């Protein structure tokens, strides 16, 4: 089988899965703690290069339909692309899962600067206090995401 066909189909289906999980499982929350389940997908870039494009595409689709449309498409998608690309390149030589998850979590922080910039432009909120709040939320979501991806990786081969 052509590798290109397998890559295209797998990337597209994972992007669709990102959108489906974002929309269908959105109501699942823990009281005041809203778990952004779809953030766990950012960890996938530590397993296979293909997920960089898959997750970025998923975010693009979700953002096309967000109420802030074109601006979310630019900032949100670029933030995810930066986060997942950094994750892939920084975890290529790391073999332990704990190491991969920790690096993936840290790698999302530069991308959050774009989300912070978007909020600054929209709401005139101060860049740095807002960034730390956003970063804390992202780290919490990524830690929970790491736990979920770990459990999934025990049953599903995420490298393939």
């Amino acid at each position, binding site marked *: *089988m*052509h590798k*290109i*066909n*397998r890559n*295209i*189909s*797998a*990337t*597209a*289906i*994972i*992007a*669709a*899965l990102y*959108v*489906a*999980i974002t*929309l*269908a*499982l959105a109501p*699942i929350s*823990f009281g005041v*703690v809203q778990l952004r*389940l779809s953030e766990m997908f950012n960890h996938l870039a530590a397993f296979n290069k293909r997920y960089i*494009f898959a997750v970025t*595409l*998923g975010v*693009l*689709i979700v953002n*096309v*339909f*967000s*109420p*802030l*449309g*074109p*601006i979310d498409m630019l900032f949100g998608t670029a933030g995810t692309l930066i986060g997942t690309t950094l994750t892939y390149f920084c975890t290529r030589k790391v073999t332990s899962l704990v190491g991969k998850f920790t690096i993936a979590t840290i790698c999302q922080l530069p991308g959050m600067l774009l989300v912070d910039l978007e909020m600054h*432009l*929209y*709401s*005139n*909120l101060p860049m740095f206090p807002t960034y730390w709040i956003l970063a804390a939320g992202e780290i919490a979501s990524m830690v*929970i995401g790491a*736990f*979920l991806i770990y*459990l*999934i990786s025990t*049953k*599903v081969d995420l490298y*393939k």
Partner: protein
Amino acid sequence: MNKILFGRYVPGTSFVHRMDPRAKLILSLIYIVAVFMANSWSAYVVSFIIALTIIASSGIAPKFFWDGVKPLIGVILLTVVIQVFFGVGGHVYWHWGILSITSDGLLNAVYIAIRFVLIILVSTVLTLSTSPLEISGAIESLFMPLKKIHFPVYEMALMLSIALRFVPTLIDETEKILNAQRSRGANFSSGSIMARLKKLVSILIPLFESAFNRAEELATAMESRGYQGGEGRSKYRVLNYTKNDIIGTIFMMASVALIMVLRNWS
């Protein structure tokens, strides 16, 4: 459940509906940038009139626009409250510790709330008047110049179309798995955080497995139909700029020019 994503598109034959999706996407971005540049009451009034004109020419009922604004009311109010109590400059009406209400803070709060609403309204026109496939086609076309730096534009467009096609299927599948687990007694809204996460895994593992199986089947189907990459493939839906796009562009350029004049004038 599919309505969440795809129910937003309202089919129609209005002026805006008949515009090229690329023109709609670019003109929406230009409008958003112009709204960010507005800095006076007169500029915001003009921006508001432009938004109302666009909405009127889309022929879409106002309740759909209310649905667009509704989810962000909390964010808008929070932003307004922050601006009102933390804004500085101008006449001080009230002061207590780090909190203060000033004339500049109040003005900023109102400007930001108007800006939010205007951007949401125009973004909503875009998604209500353009089908997901049209948006996907527009993104492909706008990315075309990146081919020169070997960006896989055709592949990206195909992936976007496949992903859009499979979103409803995977949402249905997620619901089926959720219901299957519930019928076995799973309760996703009780227990400790750890217990709930473990229950979630019982949904996620079958979902991932099924997604990978679908990807494998799809790759086989592409292979059997002789897919060899996108270069040279013809398209069923061909995008063409029409008279409506020229009129829309002239209207938007004139509007943006007016906003810029009012910005520099005030």
